[in-house]
């Protein structure tokens, strides 16, 4: 029983990282109708900046500064590489983000090198025992931070003027523009927000275990998450992110009997299998809006 609780908490910790990443994807999708494949790069940038900044300042301050810088980078990328492409097919824009990802990640990798960079976070691999259940502090910290960030994000969308503008631009760009919403600013802000969320995910992902080059693959796990939750559903992203984290942890822990057939690291592909299964039944994910087709 204790083992189960510990596994679920670990799943929730990893799942909140997926949720943060997925939120970034969904925010960009809502504003531009494009899946941004550049998210893994922003995730790495966030982690990398913290690992350098922490050498000269407090961890929490380093996170704030790093996220602001990552956000700026996101907005900059949008302005340089994405703005000229407005009105082009989404496929083309998606591939541009792939190109952006390759470029940024190569630069990041040259800074990481072959070492594992430590975050200098206060949690490390320390554990916490609550009523016989041992859990990593970092998983708990990730979960709590994610919940706070998600609550703030939802409040921002729901009650702030800018949030309203972003929702308006997402539902109809031309009408929003006619009402005085600067759609360009909305794009830039969406990219900045998405980059910051990815950066935060990068920081938490590398707390304890450290940042290394191959970590970017984790960011791609947010793709099954957003497909499961529905590309345009913020709530769906959070729910599906946590769910996939938990399922992955459960399979990782209890799927040992499967390992002779599927391999010991079978849990790594569980998100993708789950995605295929759900899509067979619901082509727009669990919470996504069905596309309206006009003839």
């Amino acid at each position, binding site marked *: 029983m204790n083992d189960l609780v510990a596994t679920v908490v670990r799943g929730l910790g990893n799942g909140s990282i997926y949720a943060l990443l997925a939120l970034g994807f969904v925010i960009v999708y809502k504003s531009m109708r494009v899946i941004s494949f550049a998210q893994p790069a922003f995730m790495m940038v966030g982690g990398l900046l913290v690992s350098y900044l922490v050498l000269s300042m407090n961890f929490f301050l380093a996170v704030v500064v790093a996220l602001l810088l990552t956000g700026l980078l996101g907005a900059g990328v949008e302005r340089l590489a994405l703005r000229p492409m407005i009105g082009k097919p989404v496929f083309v824009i998606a591939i541009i983000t792939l190109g952006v990802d390759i470029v940024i990640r190569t630069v990041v990798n040259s800074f990481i090198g072959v070492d594992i960079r430590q975050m200098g976070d206060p949690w490390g691999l320390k554990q916490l025992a609550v009523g016989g259940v041992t859990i990593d502090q970092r998983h708990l910290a990730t979960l709590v931070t994610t919940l706070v960030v998600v609550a703030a994000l939802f409040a921002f969308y729901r009650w702030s003027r800018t949030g309203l503008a972003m929702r308006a631009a997402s539902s109809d760009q031309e009408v929003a523009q006619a009402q005085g919403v600067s759609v360009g600013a909305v794009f830039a802000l969406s990219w900045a927000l998405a980059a910051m969320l990815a950066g935060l995910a990068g920081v938490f992902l590398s707390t304890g275990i450290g940042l290394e080059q191959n970590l970017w693959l984790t960011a791609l796990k947010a793709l099954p998450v957003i497909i499961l939750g529905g590309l345009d559903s913020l709530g769906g992203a959070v729910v599906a992110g946590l769910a996939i984290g938990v399922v992955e942890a459960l399979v990782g822990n209890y799927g040992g009997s499967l390992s002779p057939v599927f391999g010991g690291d079978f849990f790594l592909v569980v998100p993708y299998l789950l995605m295929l299964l759900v899509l067979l039944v619901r082509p727009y994910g669990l919470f996504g809006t069905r*596309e309206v087709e006009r003839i």
Partner: protein
Amino acid sequence: MSGRLATSYGQDMALLNTPAKRWWTLVLVVAAVALPFVLEDDLLVVLATAFVAAIGAIGLNIVTGYAGQVSLGHAFFLAIGAYTAAALSGDPDSTRLIGFGITSLPVWLLAAGLVAGLAGLIVAPLAARLRGLYLAVVTLGLVFIGEHVFKHWRDLTGGVGVGRPAAVPELFGLEFAVDGAMFTKAQKLYLLMFVLLVIFGVLARNLVRSRIGRALAAVRDRDLAAEVIGVDVTRYKMIAFAVSSFYAGVAGALLYVMIGFVEPGSFNLALSVQYIAMILVGGVATISGSVLGALFITLLPRLTRELPAVLPFVSSSSTAGGITVFQVEAILYGLLIIGFLIFEPRGLFGIWIRIRTYWKAWPFSH
């Protein structure tokens, strides 16, 4: 513009519809056949790899360029082709790996294509239900699942870091992968791959200018409208996936013949992206564009390797300071994708068309 009057549809759609095209094709073919006697062997191997990549790129262009179904799963189908061929032509006495000892090139080549095509057909119903980026992500999932399976199926693939020998090309007793009395290994492989590229290129060109090609374009441009005018959208999406995967299977089977070795870790997302880059840089929905793009992307590493001689701040080893060629290559590759999409969406093929139009009307360019 110098006009050309076509008096029938068949005449308009003919493969080599102008004398200029006929002459240039002849010149290109003669030049390509003459190359192995001029160039050095290592360059020939790179070119042969590029020809094989071109076959794969043509396949991706059929499903993504012509039918408009974005697929990031090309690496998966390449892997299926590579392993089908490797297993068929593998050593039957090996205790470590599956092998059937069928080294005849046409047999394993067709089998690789058919098995991959079948896999494409299995995936296609899922694709028929999904649109746009949902499909892109699902095909991406396919790559990850495939990579996992191939890494763990040791009897077939040899496992991570170990790998297995690639398919053995042999045709009517003629071995391609060994040096012969008349030709070297590189020369033979180059000519073999060139002939295969011409065959598969012409086949694809014929496919896309036929009824099927027009149906695919209709599905791409507006699937609802296509359905209204009587195109069976699901059926044509399945055809597109099957044909594309067939090409991928063939390319996968041949791709590792040059190095003679397949490693299961190589069939990852980066490989899929490489093929996407080929068709984008070359030209979406053109066969000759796919070939141009494949040549360009495959020759790119070879070009960047010459950089340290020209630019002193680029170093060729990863231990020395400064920027390494590998980093330059990766960045160039990303920038090329972005640059082509922003400035020349029709790719190299588009540049060629612009040059051609300019000279057609020269010296009266307007």
